[in-house]
């Protein structure tokens, strides 16, 4: 098996796929949004709860491949407790990393997603939950 494939399916990714974090419906969310990959039918819903300009809570549910599920799970860990400005910075860094523009400023478990950049077809999978998170923020009632 290729080294690139080993890098794509790191054990952190497989763990998050099997036991996704914050994988639940949120009843008292400030906003939510759906993400859909029409190519494969993968689907995710992200809920956000705001406290002022801070992401007090974030959760998701849905069906998808290991990459999309793990990436959404890592996303919830990365933005929980962050301000809206910090969330935007994290999003931009994630996006730069998976599209091969470097992993500058990437910390923690999110590093495990760096392998995605070698597989352009999987960028969509990895981004699904992230774009839904952004849309949920846009929809959120203050």
């Amino acid at each position, binding site marked *: *098996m*290729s080294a*690139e*494939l080993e890098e*794509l*399916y790191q*054990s952190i990714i*497989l763990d998050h796929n*099997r036991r996704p974090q914050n994988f639940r419906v949120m009843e008292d969310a400030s906003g939510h949004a759906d993400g859909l990959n029409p*190519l*494969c*039918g*993968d*689907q995710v819903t992200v809920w956000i709860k705001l406290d002022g300009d801070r992401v007090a809570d974030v959760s998701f549910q849905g*069906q*998808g*491949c*290991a*990459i999309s*599920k793990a990436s959404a799970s890592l996303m919830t860990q990365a933005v929980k407790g962050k301000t809206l400005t910090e969330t935007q910075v994290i999003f931009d860094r994630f996006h730069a990393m998976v599209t091969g523009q470097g992993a500058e400023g990437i910390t923690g478990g999110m590093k495990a997603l760096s392998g995605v950049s070698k*597989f352009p077809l*999987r960028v969509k*999978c990895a981004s699904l939950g992230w774009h839904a998170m952004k849309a949920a923020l846009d929809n959120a009632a203050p």
Partner: protein
Amino acid sequence: MNPLAILRKDCERPIVDIDDFSLLDERDHLHYLDSAATTQKPRAVLQAMQSYYEQHNANPHRGAYELSAQSTEAYERSRQRIARFLGVADVDTLIFTRGTTESLNVLATAWRHANVKAGDRIVVTRMEHHANFIPWQQLALAVGAEFVIAELAPGGVLDLDHLAQCCTPNTKVVAFGQVSNALGTINPVSDIVRIARTTGALVVCDGAQGVPHFDAAVDALGVDAYVFSGHKMLGPMGIGGLVVRREILEAMPPYQFGGDMIALVGDDRSTWNVLPHKFEAGTPNVAGAVGLAAAAQYLDVIGMPRVRAHEAALLAYASARLTEVSGVTVLGPPPEQRSGVVSFVLDEVHPHDIAQVLDSAGVCVRSGHHCAQPLMRALKVTATTRASFYVYNDADDVDALIVALLTTRDRMGLA
């Protein structure tokens, strides 16, 4: 010899000369198992297209000069060759289109104006490809007709009793696939036609997954319309066809307007050309038709019964070997009732991840909903992995698939 070795021996070699397929010949480690999506093209097809452009290219049906006449002849001779391959006697009822999807859209659009109104009913089946589902769904929505789906019986086959219940006297269209693209299920066309004929409906058969795999014998099917794609039967992309009974085609209004499809164009009205030209507006895809005729010739030389037998042998061997991979569930009816398709799920592993690991072993399979979301819902899966076999595949391809699936289990952390 043990039973598995016997099965392997039956599909040990491809039934074509691999040299004919440059792409496969030049990539030793490629295992192309996605022919239900599109087939590879033999050199004979590519050469026929190239020599058309090098020796006969001109706009057909128009010029008074010799070269244009040659182009017209190449185009119409291709139509005759393909009609013969399909088992269609009335050659001018074969309309060239871009493929199955366009054929079905032509049909749904042209048929709609005259024949389907509010309160009528349109019947399709649960296992249709989106191309034979959405055009009818949208037609029904547009005119206020009822859109009804004939469901599956257990085992991934069509429930004929339910189909019969769906076919009420006000049914105006019954559309079904000859073979399911997602599962490979071969449908009992004669039973479906018998049921559909209890109504006055237009009976439409999507042959996209039929024509490549066995003798289509279109005239003998007794349907009103039959559609297919060239690129799934060794032909080029961008050419396919629509075969419709002559009296229906003559009564149907044109789908597109423009050059070649007219008889007389007045200032305030126009009249239409004869068949098949009435439904072929604009400069046609002559090279595509020439390439498709060469594909028909190539398949005829092999013989469609041999194609069917080879696929059946590959499927039997693959089915036996898949039992070695724990956690695999094959969807659909038993192999004998399928074309060369095996659609499966593997425990909790998502088909995209399977296809990714398989790709690293050079095994090309399709993962996803196979443009059959209504079917996926009924099967209660979001996606499957599909391996599909054709004339150039052999036991080595099956072996590579099995090894790669075992690697997938390992890689994805399954015990």
